[in-house]
């Protein structure tokens, strides 16, 4: 089985937007269909990417992490067939596959939009020159009402459009989640080690795979730690600025 090759996989970020885009991209590059088997095959590439993302753009990581956790479950199950999953975990896996299929569908339909958009435009009539020369004010127009309204509008503008909408707390708990997952898999690995004693050659292969897989988890953990710390400093900077402005 050469699907587990560890050759580094370079990902062009242009190809996707979020976790599903990345996952779909990885699957399509390997010309696979979406199912738990193929998801297991792209898990390492996915984790590798998330780790890199964690280093360069910590605030973007969180949406990728939840998916990563489910992928790790899928991967673990494929490595340790006897690993019994809880109902919740099974549900997560099923839901990820469904969401990915749904995303794939809309992504494909997006192609229809891309190819038709602006090609055959239906035009609404142009704004006509004002022929009716009338002046019809409205009692609601006063100096005061205009001021109140304009201030309302200004108040509704999003404060900082690019502020990542991720709470640090959430990232920390996800980090904890990965810790738990790591423990869970290590535990299962010790318990199930005998299960691997099939053919010696494949056994060695499998052990190597699992070890590198766990190393990968560790990397991801580090990446998330990075994210958390960076978010902390971000936070502090924002607070400081706010104080200076007052």
């Amino acid at each position, binding site marked *: 089985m050469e699907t587990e090759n560890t050759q580094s996989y370079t990902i062009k970020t*242009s190809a*996707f*937007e*979020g*976790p*599903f*885009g990345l996952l779909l991209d990885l699957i399509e590059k390997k010309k696979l269909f979406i199912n738990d088997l193929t998801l297991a095959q792209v898990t390492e590439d996915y984790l590798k990417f998330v780790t890199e993302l964690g280093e360069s753009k910590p605030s973007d990581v969180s*949406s990728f992490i*939840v*998916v990563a*956790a489910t992928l790790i479950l899928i991967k673990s199950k494929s490595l340790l067939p006897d690993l019994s999953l809880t109902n*919740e975990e099974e549900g997560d896996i099923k*839901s990820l596959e*469904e*969401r990915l299929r*749904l*995303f794939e*569908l*809309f*992504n494909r*339909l*997006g*192609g*229809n*939009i*891309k190819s*038709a*958009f*602006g*090609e*055959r*435009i*239906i*035009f*609404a*009539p*142009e704004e*006509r020159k004002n022929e009716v020369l009338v002046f019809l004010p409205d009692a609601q127009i006063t100096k005061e009402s205009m001021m109140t309204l304009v201030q309302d509008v200004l108040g509704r503008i*999003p404060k900082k*459009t*690019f502020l990542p*909408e991720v*709470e640090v*707390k*959430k990232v920390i*708990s*996800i980090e904890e*989640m990965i810790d*738990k*997952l790591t423990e869970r898999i290590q535990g299962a690995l010790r318990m199930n080690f005998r299960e691997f004693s099939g053919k010696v050659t494949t056994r060695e292969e499998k052990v190597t795979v699992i070890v590198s897989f766990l190393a990968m988890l560790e990397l991801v953990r580090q990446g998330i730690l990075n994210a958390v710390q960076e978010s902390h400093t971000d936070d502090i900077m924002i607070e400081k600025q706010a104080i200076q402005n007052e």
Partner: protein
Amino acid sequence: MNNLENKIEAILFWRGEPISRKRLAEILKVGQTEINEGLENLKNNLQSRGIVLQEKDNDITLGTSPEFSTMIEDLQKEELNKNLTKSSLETLSIVLYRNGASRAEIDYIRGVNSSFTLRALSVRGLVERIADPKDQRRFIYRPSFELLSYMGIKSVEELPEYSEVSNSIKLAADNLAEDLKKENTTNENDGAREN
């Protein structure tokens, strides 16, 4: 002699903007059924003509026939923005093929926060935000006439593959609503996912 469709045509032409079926019925002092019939007839009258009837939810408007797109485009001075980013495409395909979606649904399907993309699309006039009739605290983002116009279609049903995918989308939407409900209740606890 029934000239309801002519009256409708005159009103739509004069107005030059979308108008609701309800408002048409009010103006013309007839029932919904008559309005719908009149619109059907008008649609037939406009077949193979220079102008077309566009329909969206309960609103109607007139526009130039899409086959003359290049000609009109050359005539108009304003430059048209035909670029769509990857995130815009994803978001538009959800809004169009679902014929309206809440931000939570869009975020869930895309797996990323879509608020900024939605704002950009709304500023461009490609999506409209309305209060969700089922829940006034939420908003629904739905396709605008402008979006249909850029796609060169008279109604969402004319989207490529629309009838083929609309069933599976509806089905998926139900699962999605289920999932979203779950997600919301767990998120309320402490923002973390289960485990």
